[in-house]
């Protein structure tokens, strides 16, 4: 029994990493006042970029870096059209995701049956031999550890640094930032690109540390889940960890139940993680609206041009 619990929770952590990276990236962009629905596309390009470079070089770490780069590159398209040209953020994000889908199916087909040597899990010394917590938290791939560290780092960056303050101010009231001599456009551009890098890293974890293969459209909406989890998290990086682990937990639990041969349709079981995502948004209800960066209100509540 204990081993099943360990397996489910350990699996939950591992399958949360991709969403967590993407959610942290999206959070950075949204704190600067930009919603990026292209996160889904950035994850996809990140997954393919990482997979292709890993296949070519045999080094999954180089692959992960390339994945982040691909995500950043696609996010730059979003940043240019939505931030510099001022187009509607939500429509641009959808177009960017579809661009990512097209680009990855264009270049991805030759990788469909490619085998790669992915990232091996690393058991952290001492910690991994703790009972229960060890196997759940400390026997994972390096990208999973990185995602765990990244959440408090981003929290510190946003809350305690000068650039974090400028970024948050851009999301609340960009005129103020402009009046003290920063360029809100540049800050937003940088935030979106950094967010795309993290989303790409999330896709990379999916491809070179979790599934170890490439399948067209393999992220299956995880980018949108990440956007939802940022709202659930009330734009707080530490809460984004909780949200991502809820999604990963649902994913891992339904896979374990399917493996046990529970008599429920596998398709309905696969819908559970999305239902959980929708469910947590419903549960937190109106509370999150007070936390919403002011500049986002115009995007989400008056969703016009």
């Amino acid at each position, binding site marked *: 029994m204990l081993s099943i619990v360990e397996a489910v929770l350990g699996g939950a952590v591992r399958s949360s990493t991709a969403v967590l990276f993407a959610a942290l990236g999206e959070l950075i962009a949204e704190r600067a006042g930009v919603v990026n629905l292209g996160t889904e596309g950035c994850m996809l390009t990140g997954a393919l970029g990482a997979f292709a470079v890993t296949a070519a070089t045999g080094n999954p770490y180089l692959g992960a870096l390339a994945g982040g780069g691909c995500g950043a590159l696609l996010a730059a398209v979003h940043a240019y059209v939505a931030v510099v040209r001022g187009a509607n953020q939500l429509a641009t994000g959808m*177009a960017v995701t579809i661009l990512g889908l097209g680009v990855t*199916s264009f270049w991805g087909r030759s990788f469909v049956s490619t085998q790669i040597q992915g990232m091996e899990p690393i058991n952290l010394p001492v910690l991994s031999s703790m009972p229960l917590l060890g196997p759940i938290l400390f026997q994972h791939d390096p990208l999973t550890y990185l995602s765990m560290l990244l959440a408090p780092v981003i929290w510190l960056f946003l809350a305690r640094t000068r650039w974090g303050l400028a970024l948050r101010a851009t999301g609340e009231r960009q005129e103020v930032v402009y009046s003290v001599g920063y360029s809100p456009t540049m800050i937003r551009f940088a935030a979106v690109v950094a967010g795309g890098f993290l989303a790409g890293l999330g896709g990379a974890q999916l491809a070179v540390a979790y599934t170890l293969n490439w399948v067209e459209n393999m992220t299956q909406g995880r980018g949108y889940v990440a956007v939802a989890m940022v709202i659930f998290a009330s734009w707080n990086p530490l809460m984004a960890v909780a949200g991502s682990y809820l999604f990963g937990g649902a994913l891992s639990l339904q896979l374990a139940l399917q493996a046990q041969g529970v008599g429920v349709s596998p398709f309905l079981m696969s819908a559970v993680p999305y239902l959980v995502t929708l469910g947590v*948004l*419903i549960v937190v209800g109106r509370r999150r609206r007070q936390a919403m960066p002011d500049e986002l209100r115009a995007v989400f509540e008056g969703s016009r*041009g």
Partner: protein
Amino acid sequence: MSVFTVGLTLRVKRDFKPIAQRFGVAAVLPVALFALFLMLAGVAPIDTFAAMLQSSVGSSYGIGEVLVRAAPFALTALAAVIPARAGLLNVGAEGQLVCGGLGVAAMAFALGDVSPAGIPLLIVAGMAGGAAWAGIAGVLRTKLQLSETISTLLLNYIGYLLVAHVLQGPLKDPASFNWPYSAPLSDALRFATLLGSRVNVGMLLAPLAAGVLAVLLFRTYWGLNLRVTGGNPQAARRAGINVPRTYLTVMLIAGALAGLAGVLQVMGVEGRLRPTSGVGFGYAGFLAAWMVGHHPIWVLLSALLLAAIAVSGDALQITAGLPASSINILTALVLLGVLARGRAQSRG
């Protein structure tokens, strides 16, 4: 009625110039970029473009296929237009379309073999299926202020999986061996087709819906209220407009329109529901709506353009050996080109 039509033509004329400009810019740059992609893949762009044009507009068969694709695109585009006019962003036509198809398949299953009198019942069932799915997002928005953009995106994935489930379970055709298909509709329940092509009478529903919605939107008090809500919900509330009810209504209408696209696909084109029926059509419609600034008549044009691109994507697969979904690159670039032209003209 004639006054309405005159008013409508005037508006269409006035709108034509900016829209023509948009299409102009939207055409050159994306095509050039796409040619670059093709060259990177070691495919000759000119030959490929020729093959793409040939397959889409180069024959009467190709033109028919474009029209067959454009009709559901126009309906899913309208499913984005109506909420956008009221200030909502419906990205859920994907899920609403497949739930519409599900409604048709379920009703056909319940009715068994019946005469053509079953056709209206199937259409209503399809529209109801789509409306129900969109209604979930509408209620979440009005009761909990949950962004309909997020909820409709998530509901798309749940919708695909729901359809996949019923096609493996209750609605699976016992005669389809292992394929997850619903039972084929009897010929009496399908839309009449033109001379052995897939062009069918149901496709007329798309321009009909566009016309009716244009009149409702621009020539009725209801449409005015809707547009006021979209322009400024605060002002609308003070003017006594029931904003939540408007939101819910536009979502239900949008769902019914996307459901109708599912009806066309099942009753007109495929004759049965498959897990792949209409997948991708919702996003195409969303893009088509944005390309023309959410104009209910002009979406017919953008739907035609995106349908031609989509149909020519099949040529990519055959002549250049590229996956058909690579055509998404061209579709996305066209919209990004339109969006990058700036928000001054975007009326969404």
